[in-house]
């Protein structure tokens, strides 16, 4: 099930953003319905409560904000406590599914180590509770003192919230906030600007392609929406219709499920894309128009097969085979992301992979790649404020900030995510953390402001591009907030007011409502609650509306005519009148190959996000800690994946403690020897080794980010480069009892085979 493309095979209609808003305007009232009441009122409303008998289940609709995917969920509540999260079957992105991380939002909500009251570091150095007003005034005063030296960091996936922080920064006179977002999001935009001339994240129509080459995209692990792409993958491969080829150095879960896995050398993905382009160009299967578009970007001759095979470290035959199949496929598609864009050459590499779609005619085509257009609500809330800065700006700012600045970190944990920031933090003046937990950053802060988690707050989310259809998801709170936690948006507004630069809204919800009113030209007073009861069954909370229903309602009302598909190709390619036409871009094939340090045997370390802990956000949930990693089956800790051949040579057995030595630091962790690791490389999951983050995460595992060099950047993107790090690996010892990795499939070291008996099913009769 996919949203927004009701009629398959119809001629594509591209709509400009302005038209799009017009189309949606008629349905504005429906959206506003979700914004009518304040959260507490909603929960305490006698009318609502009458439906909720003691002990009876009430299902409330909400948005999952654990990542930026924008899965729509229903939350089962009993006696006003949240019990269970399920995917909304009509969900725009998830169509009923929820991932492991999404389920665990309940344990975030009810975590025993939540921050529930504002705290300030007292004279003793301990954090002590203080009243909200005092906390706000303290922060506001600090910002007002030297606003130009204030640094804001926001990690929320919500676009409108980021817009609000931008507005806040502009109002108080601080520099624009730093958007603490995944590397992919930053690099993809930069690469799309190069390849497609528009800096929108590409949206991939995986489900309707028939031959997909995924260059490093771990879309079944944790990338954008594993739920959506899982379903799309199932559709792609159903009845062996389509084929997925994973081109990735590490054997990720996606590689494990792919029909073919090409374990290219880490960092050589761009070279690989260029090599494949060369084969395609030479195959005669490429049309003139596509050839011209491609060669406009890459005037140089692509590398030949032998050079590609050599650089990528894989069999030339396999590359040739892949190119031949690509050329033959009816609806081929090349995706790029994950480890392909983690390295310093990430932008060039992913641009090269994206550009393959030009060769294949896959841009704007069904089963191809589209422009992942935002709804624009970030900007509506931000007004004229300057754009947010990329993550790497943080260490630049901290490095140059000097003593007395204020650092406000909202819903982000940069200390865990980036090495070397510790020292810079010491230099920063007052550190203010808006957080629900004492994570690495928060526990280091001078002031801690408790914020609400997903299910406690009013939500307005522009999801990551999945369908290529812009959407805004809105939901009311599901349960009352714990303790004194507040909405981070409300905190921003209160801070602005306290700093004497009050913004025009009393709260975040009103800000979103106001933006919707502006967008659709309707008044907030409009109310059609009674007009369409079927769409909102009584037990469901009015207010969680998604773009899909929005469209349906609009369609029912006759407001949306002849839509066809609403997604579109990147503007530059579709209309040809973009501001910046794509021109020649850096050829990754011309970049020098990374050289191994001489003398010591070094491994390419691939940090990766495991499906369960992600970037570390999931590390504080017991469900996720005790969830076995699907491939290594490790629970409760970090590990390093090694190839059997390397392990044999170094005398390492599964469970042995090994030391990884990088340029600046070393870490010790248990080895897991797998037959799927590319020799010469090691994989280490990120997200472990929190200095704090509640009882389930504290000190659990190892933070692999310690090995990264904070000065390495993805060129041209403002993101930290974490790919292709060279490390030395040595065996330390057999593990002590308490060090042994917790391996769920304990027998796997003895039996790698499948002992499964066959028999036809007989209906299970007794």
């Amino acid at each position, binding site marked *: 099930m996919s949203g927004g493309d009701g009629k398959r095979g119809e001629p594509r209609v591209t709509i400009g953003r302005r038209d799009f808003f017009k189309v949606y305007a008629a349905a504005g009232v429906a959206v506003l319905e979700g914004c009518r009441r304040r959260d507490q009122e909603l929960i305490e409303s006698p009318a609502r409560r009458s439906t909720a008998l003691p002990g009876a289940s009430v299902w409330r609709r909400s948005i999952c904000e654990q990542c930026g995917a924008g899965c729509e969920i229903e939350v089962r509540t009993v006696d006003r406590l949240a019990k*269970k999260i399920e995917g909304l079957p009509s969900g725009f992105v998830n169509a009923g599914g929820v*991932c492991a991380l999404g389920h665990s939002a309940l344990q975030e909500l009810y975590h025993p180590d939540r921050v529930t009251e504002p705290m300030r570091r007292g004279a003793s150095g301990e954090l002590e509770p203080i009243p909200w007003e005092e906390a706000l005034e303290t922060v506001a005063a600090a910002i007002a003192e030297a606003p130009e030296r204030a640094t804001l960091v926001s990690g929320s996936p919500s676009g409108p919230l980021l817009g609000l922080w931008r507005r806040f920064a502009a109002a108080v006179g601080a520099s624009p906030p730093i958007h603490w977002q995944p590397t992919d999001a930053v690099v993809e935009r930069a690469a799309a600007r190069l390849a497609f001339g528009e800096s929108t994240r590409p949206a991939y129509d995986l489900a309707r392609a028939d031959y997909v080459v995924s260059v490093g995209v771990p879309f079944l692990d944790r990338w954008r929406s594993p*739920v959506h792409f*899982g379903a799309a993958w199932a559709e792609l491969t159903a009845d062996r219709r389509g084929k997925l080829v994973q081109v990735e150095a590490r054997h990720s879960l996606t590689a494990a499920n792919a029909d073919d896995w090409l374990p290219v050398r880490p960092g050589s993905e761009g070279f690989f894309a260029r090599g494949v382009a060369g084969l395609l160009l030479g195959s005669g299967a490429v049309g003139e128009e596509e050839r011209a578009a491609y060669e406009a970007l890459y005037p140089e001759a692509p590398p030949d097969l032998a050079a590609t095979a050599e650089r990528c470290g894989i069999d030339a035959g396999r590359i040739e085979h892949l190119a031949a199949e690509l050329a033959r496929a009816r609806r081929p598609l090349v995706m790029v992301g994950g480890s392909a864009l983690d390295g310093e050459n990430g932008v060039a590499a992913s641009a090269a992979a994206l550009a393959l779609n030009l060769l294949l005619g896959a841009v704007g085509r069904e089963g191809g790649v589209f422009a992942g257009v935002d709804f624009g609500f970030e900007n509506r809330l931000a007004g004229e404020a300057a754009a947010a800065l990329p993550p790497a700006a943080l260490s630049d700012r901290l490095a140059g900030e000097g003593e007395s600045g204020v650092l406000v970190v909202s819903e982000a944990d940069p200390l865990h995510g980036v090495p070397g920031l510790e020292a810079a933090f010491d230099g920063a003046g007052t550190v203010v953390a808006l957080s629900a937990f004492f994570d690495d950053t928060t526990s280091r802060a001078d002031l801690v402001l408790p914020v609400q988690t997903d299910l406690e707050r009013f939500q307005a989310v522009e999801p990551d591009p999945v369908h290529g259809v812009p959407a805004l998801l809105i939901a009311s709170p599901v349960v009352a907030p714990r303790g004194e936690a507040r909405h981070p948006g409300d905190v921003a507004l209160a801070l602005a007011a306290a700093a004497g630069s009050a913004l025009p809204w009393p709260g975040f919800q009103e800000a979103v409502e106001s933006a919707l009113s502006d967008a659709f030209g309707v008044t907030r007073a409009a109310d059609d609650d009674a007009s369409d009861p079927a769409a909102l069954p009584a037990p469901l909370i009015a207010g969680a509306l998604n773009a899909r229903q929005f469209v349906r309602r609009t369609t029912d009302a006759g407001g949306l005519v002849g839509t066809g598909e609403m997604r579109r190709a990147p503007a530059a390619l579709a209309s040809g009148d973009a501001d910046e036409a794509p021109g020649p871009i850096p050829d990754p094939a011309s970049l020098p190959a990374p050289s191994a340090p001489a003398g010591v045997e070094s491994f390419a370390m691939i940090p990766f996000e495991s499906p369960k802990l992600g970037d570390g956000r999931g590390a504080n949930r017991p469900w996720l800690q*005790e969830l076995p990693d699907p491939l290594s089956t490790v629970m409760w800790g970090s590990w390093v994946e090694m190839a059997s051949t390397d392990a044999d040579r170094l005398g390492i057995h599964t469970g042995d403690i090994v030391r990884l030595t990088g340029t600046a630091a070393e870490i010790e962790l248990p080895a897991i020897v797998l037959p799927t690791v590319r020799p010469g490389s090691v994989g280490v999951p990120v997200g472990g080794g929190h200095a704090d983050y509640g009882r389930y995460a504290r000190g659990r595992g190892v933070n692999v980010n310690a090995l990264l060099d904070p000065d390495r950047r993805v060129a041209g993107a403002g993101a930290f480069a974490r790919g292709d790090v060279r490390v030395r690996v040595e065996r330390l010892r057999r593990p002590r009892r308490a060090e042994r990795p917790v391996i769920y499939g304990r027998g796997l070291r003895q039996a790698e085979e*499948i002992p499964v008996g066959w028999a036809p*099913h007989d209906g*299970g009769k007794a």
Partner: protein
Amino acid sequence: MTRWGMAIDLDRCTGCEACVVACAAENNIQTVGEEQAREGRAMHWLRIERYYEGEFPNVRTRFMPVLCQQCGAAPCEPVCPVYATYHNPEGLNAMVYSRCIGTRFCANNCPYTVRVFNWFDAEFPAPLDSQLNPDVSVRPGGVMEKCTFCVQRIQAGKDEAAQEDREVMDGDVKTACQQSCPTKAIAFGDLEDPDSEVSRWAESPRAFSLLGDLDTRPGVVYLSGTEWREPAE
């Protein structure tokens, strides 16, 4: 008569383990902590078995969700001295926690090793206990447990159908794992009803029973387009 059954399409399973967490959330399964998990005492009712075939770089990875197979002729049932596990009329291997004295005989006799044991009393530090499903009892220490096919959901589905004065229809009851599955690899329903989704899946030429030669007559059907071969020497 109803025979509850489940079909799992291995060709659609990505091994993402969303079902495993969904199951824990629905069924109040305790997390045992690092030390206990290291001892092999993690309590997942549903596990994703991962197997590799072949050598690098031509390794094939297989995932197989394994849960209680709700056998028609369940080896776990006769060995229980106190009828704590028994066969209910709808084909479920029901567990009566309050009767279980913890001999663990049933677990030894389960060819699928899907039974898990509460080695200690469950701990849900407040307010994590706010999340507990009121429809499912929290098991005390010393008691065996396993997948119930979300029997509380089956009961809820029946109650709802009874209130609406109708039979339980296919699709009325969804297990937590099935509901959560992003790729819709799980079907659940009545195997006696030839029109149910699960029956239709079970008719597939790809369908097979896990360890079928034991003739335990499982209520879980697996579908796979490629053969799961037995190990060589």
